[in-house]
């Protein structure tokens, strides 16, 4: 409990469509152990993320040892989560879970360059837990809000990460705002249909988002 503990990195709220575009990484110092940040295209640094979605598929893609890949779908796209021997709890969780299931994931962004030079962004989980639909809905609402806030601050003077995003990406932050609002609108409609029944299990929120997402060319090195 010595007071000099380094400050913990906040877990950013970001939808899959934006997260998967966050292929540029950087550090804030030359220290070998300096934390690595993924640059969100809406202009924010991200060393950790928290998201809730539907686990739709899981597969052991490891050769010698177990290496689990999970596809976790939110209203905008798919997060890819990889857990191996160095994430034993998350790996055993992926082994045990039966898709479809709502899961909450805390994890670190990882990037991986495929043979053709495409940068894939995935998540190395710190924890995976099964949650309910109410938690998923709260996350969608919260993430929509945080996304819209980041877009609103994108042109602020002194927004260093927005400046970096402008330099590193050719991506319009407004598309993420549109995706965030549409995710919230879908939630609003499904709310009306279910008339308050918050426990509709295992309904992947959106299928079209999964189908246009190609699998990473291979598993990143464990």
């Amino acid at each position, binding site marked *: 409990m010595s007071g000099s503990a380094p400050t913990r990195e906040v877990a950013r709220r970001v939808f899959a469509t934006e997260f998967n575009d966050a292929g540029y990484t950087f550090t804030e110092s030359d220290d070998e152990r300096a934390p690595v940040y993924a640059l969100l295209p809406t202009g924010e640094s991200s060393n950790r993320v928290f998201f809730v979605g539907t686990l739709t598929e899981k597969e052991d893609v490891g050769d010698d040892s177990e290496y689990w890949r999970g596809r976790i779908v939110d209203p905008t796209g798919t997060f890819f989560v990889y857990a191996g021997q160095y994430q034993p709890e998350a790996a055993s969780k992926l082994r045990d879970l039966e898709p479809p299931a709502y899961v909450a994931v805390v994890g670190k962004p990882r990037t991986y360059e495929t043979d053709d030079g495409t940068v894939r962004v995935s998540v190395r989980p710190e924890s995976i837990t099964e949650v309910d639909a109410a938690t998923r809905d709260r996350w969608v609402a*919260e993430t929509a809000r945080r996304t819209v806030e980041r877009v609103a601050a994108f042109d602020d003077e002194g927004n260093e990460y927005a400046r970096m995003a402008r330099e590193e990406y050719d991506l319009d932050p407004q598309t993420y705002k549109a995706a965030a609002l549409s995710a919230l609108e879908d939630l609003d409609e499904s709310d009306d249909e279910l008339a308050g029944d918050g426990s509709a299990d295992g309904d992947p929120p959106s299928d079209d988002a999964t189908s246009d997402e190609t699998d990473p060319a291979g598993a990143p090195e464990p």
Partner: protein
Amino acid sequence: MSELRQEAEAIAEQFSDHTDVDPDDVEERLATLVDEYRVPLDEASRSVTNSYLEDAGMERDELGRGGSEEVLVNDIDEDEQWVDLRVKLVDLWEPRSDSISQVGLLGDESGTIKFVAFETSDLPELTEGQAYELSNVVTDEYEGSYSVKLNRTTGITEIDEAIEVGDDADTVEGALVDIQSGSGLIKRCPEDDCTRVLQNGRCSEHGQVEGEFDLRIKGVLDDGETVTEVIFDREATEDLTGMTLEEAKDMAMDALDTTVVAEEMGEDVLGRYYRVTGPTFGRYVLVDEMEDPGTVDVESALIEARSI
């Protein structure tokens, strides 16, 4: 009135209880330092004050802070301010050092604040539950938490008045993103007044002891903007997880391992949203009350998001 004149009168005022100091004289001395020698005003003021102290044979902490301000404890947000308080002594703690005569918690309607009195100040002992007017106490800051120090010049007056101590609890909401080590089924030192958590059966104060089982969760709530460390004590942990101390002991016994308890608790609480309320101690919010924020109001979330 010039800045110099203001400072001069403030300095003269500080000495008013002890010795006659002429503000004109002070102003002249300040002016020499500031105008001729280009000394910054605060440094000049310090130096002039010291020379008067020397003339009068006084120590710096005997100085009154001429008319220090009466404040509420929750309004204290600056280090090294001289203030007056009307407070009730809420709680006395065991001093951890011989140089401390009394340490504990003072409260007024705005909340509570830690206080320390030192042996060297030779102050009368304060009594728990009694209300006091305290004049000339100095504020102190450590890692964002404020406390007050009593000193030799502190005036202590018992007052016959019921002081309602306010609730300075913080409310934080967010997703529980981590359970830190030292959570779940833990053992505490059984020595009197020692509740330290044992590390491998050892207390950092009393060495190898037969510990007493307890439950707690040290967790992290994260709302996407800030992280807050929170501590659930046994009652709050049982409330949060639905697991009692007895069940936790049984579980650890079956597994021959206490760490299974924190793991099992993690399954139930990680990745969920909570709203907790309680007082802040150092880095931690101690959870008094916990609620599940429930179903999100999508419609108002949508209206809000569109308005940003």
